[in-house]
Structures are given as structure tokens and as C-alpha cells.
């Protein structure tokens, strides 16, 4: 002691209540076993190629490349996964692991609802009972996802404590877990939380980078100059970055939620701003947006999935090493990049993913047309229709909702 298992530099660890000690021992053991069992990875790839549609394509965004006049922009299409986001990779992998562990119930936190839908989907497929914890604010922001989770047979529990967002959902999920650890596996949705979650989730998400690395060489002939990914917890970013970590010429750029702007205090930028500091919460040590007493602060982003106080310990380490650069995109920039991408490429990125597009569009012009950049499109924007229609103040959408609302109100 201190035993440095589960640390990335000085970050990570497993700060867990004693009641979970045995659960984590078994969990580590089971993970260790599958980690070194090549049949497991093969089973995982088979599942992802028959139940989801891996490999997901790498799309050349010809119009935006031309428009910006710089690098060739490629988009890694995690939106085409079953359930519409990269979250499926992690969740289906954990599902296979849960089946091996013999557990019959899964729980998860969710912010944008994508991880919740993915987990509920996996539970339906594997026949597990399922409870999803979701901050009350996110329940409202992502209602369609809540509806689908319930249709998928999951119980969705709105979390009303704290800031009623992702971090509080994580706390709530842990509380469930310390009560039901024998039957239950907690399907953490991102590369955060106590060891071995960061390692586990990064492993499953590495499938993105493995594919992208091959694809860009096949389609473009060489490695990209830069790779962009949005960073909430950091799982989609870690997923694609792992494909290029050993190529120092490939610059890796994580894009955080700039919210109303980095100077306003209303954002969720842990590493792109100077507001965060080292801390320990939610079972791990990382850079948190917290006050001088160590109390976590309210974060803000138009994208529920990025609205989180912590960040992957693996990414903090890579950031400290200078391997990953961090930037932030404001809500306003995000809506503009979304609009531009939809209109020019016929592709609707999730609000989360749109953060990566913002930064890529800002920088594409600095590069030459014989260079490529990759944007990891972590998910599709369908789920965000209420937020997007609202942000664009779409009058016919509003009229439609008002009418529907009246119709329902009259039925009561």
C-alpha cells in the first residue's frame, strides 16, 4: 500500500465502500479471465457484427472538406450502431461478461439516455432485469430515450438528489449496487469510476479505434493528422484514441462542453478550462469541477451526455503527458456545427458528438488537402429532437407539441 493497480499516472484507483470489496474482487477476477481469453473478444466481435453493425463505416465528408478548404474530413460513424451511439460497444461487452459471471440483473446510470437505452437493450437481449438511474433534469431533456427504456422493460428511476444530472445518477446506481451486489452488475457507462471500470470500458470501446485505424489507411492511404472526439466521461474518445496512441504524429484532440463559455462558470470543461482540480469521488481520483472545499459543482451543457463533473483518469494522464490536447466547444458553436453538418452532409450528429465537429471545423483549414482528420461521431441526434427543435425555436414543431399537449390534456 499504496498499491498502484488501477492507476494511470496518479489518477484512477478504486475508492469503494467496503461492502463492495468482494464484488469488485469477483469482478476483477472475471474481467481478468476474459481479458486474456481470445474466444471472448471473438465472441464480442461476432455479437457486435450480427446484433449491431460493426465495423461501423468511416465516411468521407466531401462537402465540408471542400467548404473548409483544408484537411479531408472523415467521420467515424458510431451513430450507426444499434441504439444509435458508441455506448452499445461497452454495454454489449459488459453483457457478455455479466452472463459469464452468472448475474441476472443490471443497473446503470445515464445522462443523455443513450447509455440507458443501450443497457436496457442489452438487458432485453440477454434476459436480465434492468434498472436505470437518470437525473431528473436529464429525464426531461431526453424524454424519448426514457420512453424507449421503459418499452425495453427497464425501470427508469429519476434521481432527484444533488444537481439531478449524471453524477447523481452514478451515486444512485452505487447505492443500488451496495444493496444488491449479489444479483446485480453495475454497467458503468463510461471510462470513469473505480478500477476496473476505466480499463474495462476502454477495452470494449477500443474496437472503434482498431477499425478506424485500418479504415483510414484503406480509404485515404495513410494515418490521419488529427483525431477529434467529444469528452463526457471519455469513453468514445478513449475508444478511438486507442487506435492511434502509438502513432505520435497523430494528434489526439478531446473536446469538452464549453456550455455558455469557459469564463461563465456554466460549462463542463475539466481539462480545457482551469476550473477543475484533483479530487476523489464516485470511486476514483481525477480532475473534478469542485469548489475549494471539495464539493462538486453544478456543470452545464446543452448535451446531457457531457454534463459531468469528472473525466476519465486515463485521459487525465494522457493530457498530463501531453498526448491528448483538450479544447471546449460552446453550446452556441455546437448548434451551428450541427446545423452545418446536417445541411451539408446529410448526417445528424448527437449534441455530444457535435462538440467534436466544432473543433474539427475550426482546425480543418489549418491543414492541407492531402492530410486527413477523423471526427468520432459518437451518436446520432434523433434522441435530441426536443432539445434541438427547442434550440432552433422551430415554430411548426412548437405548434405540433402545443396541439398534442392539448389533445392529451383533453383526454384526462
Amino acid at each position: 500500500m499504496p498499491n498502484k493497480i488501477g492507476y494511470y499516472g496518479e489518477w484512477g484507483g478504486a475508492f469503494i465502500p467496503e461492502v463492495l470489496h468482494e464484488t469488485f474482487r469477483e469482478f476483477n477476477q472475471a474481467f481478468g479471465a476474459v481479458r486474456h481469453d481470445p474466444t471472448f473478444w471473438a465472441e464480442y466481435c461476432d455479437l457486435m457484427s450480427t446484433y449491431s453493425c460493426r465495423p461501423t463505416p468511416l465516411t468521407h465528408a466531401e462537402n465540408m472538406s471542400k467548404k473548409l478548404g483544408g484537411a479531408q474530413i472523415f467521420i467515424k460513424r458510431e451513430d450507426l450502431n444499434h441504439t444509435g451511439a458508441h455506448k452499445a460497444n461497452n454495454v454489449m461487452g459488459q453483457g457478455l461478461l455479466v452472463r459469464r459471471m452468472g448475474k441476472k440483473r443490471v443497473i446503470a446510470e445515464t445522462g443523455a439516455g443513450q447509455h440507458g437505452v443501450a443497457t436496457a437493450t442489452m438487458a432485453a437481449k440477454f434476459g436480465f432485469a434492468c434498472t436505470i438511474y437518470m437525473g431528473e433534469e436529464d429525464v426531461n431533456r431526453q424524454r424519448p430515450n426514457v420512453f424507449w427504456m421503459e418499452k425495453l422493460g427497464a425501470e427508469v428511476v429519476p434521481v432527484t438528489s444533488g444537481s439531478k444530472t449524471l453524477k447523481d445518477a452514478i451515486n444512485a446506481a452505487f447505492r443500488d449496487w451496495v444493496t444488491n451486489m449479489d444479483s446485480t452488475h453495475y454497467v458503468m457507462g463510461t471510462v470513469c469510476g473505480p478500477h476496473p471500470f476505466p480499463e474495462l470500458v476502454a477495452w470494449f470501446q477500443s474496437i472503434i479505434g482498431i477499425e478506424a485505424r485500418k479504415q483510414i489507411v484503406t480509404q485515404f492511404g495513410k494515418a490521419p493528422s488529427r483525431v477529434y472526439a467529444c469528452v463526457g466521461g471519455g469513453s468514445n474518445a478513449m475508444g478511438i484514441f486507442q487506435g492511434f496512441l502509438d502513432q505520435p504524429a497523430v494528434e489526439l484532440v478531446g473536446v469538452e462542453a464549453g456550455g455558455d463559455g469557459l469564463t461563465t462558470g456554466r460549462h463542463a470543461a475539466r481539462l480545457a478550462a482551469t476550473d477543475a482540480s484533483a479530487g476523489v469521488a464516485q470511486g476514483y481520483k481525477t480532475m473534478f469541477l469542485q469548489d475549494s472545499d471539495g464539493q462538486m459543482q453544478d456543470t452545464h451543457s446543452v448535451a446531457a451526455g457531457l454534463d459531468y463533473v469528472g473525466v476519465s483518469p486515463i485521459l487525465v494522464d494522457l493530457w498530463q503527458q501531453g498526448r491528448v490536447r483538450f479544447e471546449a466547444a460552446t453550446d452556441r458553436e455546437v448548434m451551428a456545427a450541427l446545423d452545418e453538418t446536417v445541411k451539408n452532409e446529410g448526417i445528424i450528429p448527437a449534441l455530444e458528438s457535435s462538440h467534436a465537429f466544432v473543433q474539427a471545423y475550426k482546425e480543418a483549414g489549418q491543414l492541407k488537402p492531402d492530410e486527413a482528420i477523423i471526427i468520432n461521431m459518437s451518436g446520432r441526434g434523433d434522441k435530441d429532437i426536443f432539445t434541438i427543435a427547442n434550440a432552433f425555436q422551430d415554430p411548426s414543431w412548437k405548434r405540433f407539441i402545443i396541439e398534442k399537449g392539448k389533445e392529451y390534456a383533453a383526454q384526462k
Partner: protein
Amino acid sequence: MRLKNNLAEALRHKDILLMTHIVLGYPSFEANREVVAQMVESGVDLIEMQIPFSEPMADGPVIIKANQDSLARGTKVRQCLEFAAEMIATHAIPFLFMTYYNILFKYGEEEFFADAAAIGIQGFIIPDLPPEEGGAFLERAKKYDIAPILIFAPTSTDERMRVLAAAADGFIYCVARRGVTGSQTSFDEAFYQYIARCRECAGLPLAVGFGICDRQDVDAIRGRAEIAVIGSEMIRLVDEKGASAVGPFISGLR
């Protein structure tokens, strides 16, 4: 060793000790002051004072709400230390801090130990700091003679209990069941077997917590453990009946 010795002394007169729990700054420091006074007067043997944290991961709804409300009123860690200093100066029983690790980490672990020791705190309960992560913490606990109270859970193996006991001091906090604070616990045969295992592995006094709310619960523990912990029930009582209800409630427990 100080806490352990103090408890041994107390146990010479009583067959079971009572430890109560308060959340600092909830509903206010003034209320805390009155509640502590009533507790001490009515014979409570030691008090754990929770420094509120925004992410009380191991707590149940009652204590979560108390943490939140206290923070919403602006409670700061410094104020908690000042209030603790006042309590320790006023009342002769041992006081402990219960909180989550980030409060110490952010304050500076060394500074926090030093300041807590200076005001006479006798133990720390940090539910999210397992000994694997608490190497420096355990060393400092020795250095400042602040007992690191470690936790046994029904899921702990004998082997694990022995590891924990070796690192702990003061007493062992035996969580009576799975789950978070504040729900009902049933004191059945499985529970008695669990406590027997704790006794076997601990070599320290045992405190039993989680879900103790009345005399019957205390009786179930008497003779099996040294300390009964009344946590969420204390807060619920003050919420519903006010600070003045604390004295009579405590008196009726033993």
C-alpha cells in the same frame, strides 16, 4: 489508542455504548449544538459528526437530504472544524468525524489530520477509503492518534476482516446489512452469525450500525457488540419532533 482506551473505560460501566450521528450544519449549527447537548446529557457515549459532501455515495435518502440542505445553506469545512472544536471543548465524550475522502483530500490530508488532532477529534470514518487506497491516511492516523474506523460488511470474508482489523483502530464499524444508511435492518440468525464472525476476526470493540431505531434493536445487539449506532433515525427524529425530542428518545434506548 486513545479512542480504544476511552471506549474500554466506558465499557467498564455499561453493557452497551451508544454512538449517535449528526450531519453538521443540518438543519443548522445551532440545532446541532442543542442536539449534541441533549445527546450527551442523556448518556450518549460517542458522537460521529458528518461533514457534508455533495456526493454522499454510501448514504441513504435521509442523510443525503441532510448533506444537501446543509451545503445549500452554505456550510463550509472550516465551520465544521470550528463547531467540532466547540463541542469537544464543551462535552467530555469522544467525537469522531465521518465524511467522504474528497473532503480530506481537497483540504490536504496532512493538514486535515493536524487540524482535527489539534481540536481533539478521536476518530475518522471515511466510507469510501478502503485501506488499499489509504496507505498515507493510515500512517497519519497513527501519527496523530486519530483512530481510523474501518468497516466490516456482511459481504466481507474472514480473510478480509482480518486485513481490515489489522489496519483499524478504536473500533470496527460493522454494517448490519447490505445497502445504504437509513433502511430497516432485521436482526435475525444470519445477523448473529455475521456478528460472531466479526468478533472472531476483529480484536477491537464492535459497533453495529445501519437501521437501528429503537430499544428492541439495541437489545438485539447488547451482549454481541459494544456499540449501537443510531444514524438516520436521529435525523428523522429531529426533523419530525425537533431537538428537544432527542433526550427522551436516547434515554428510552438503553
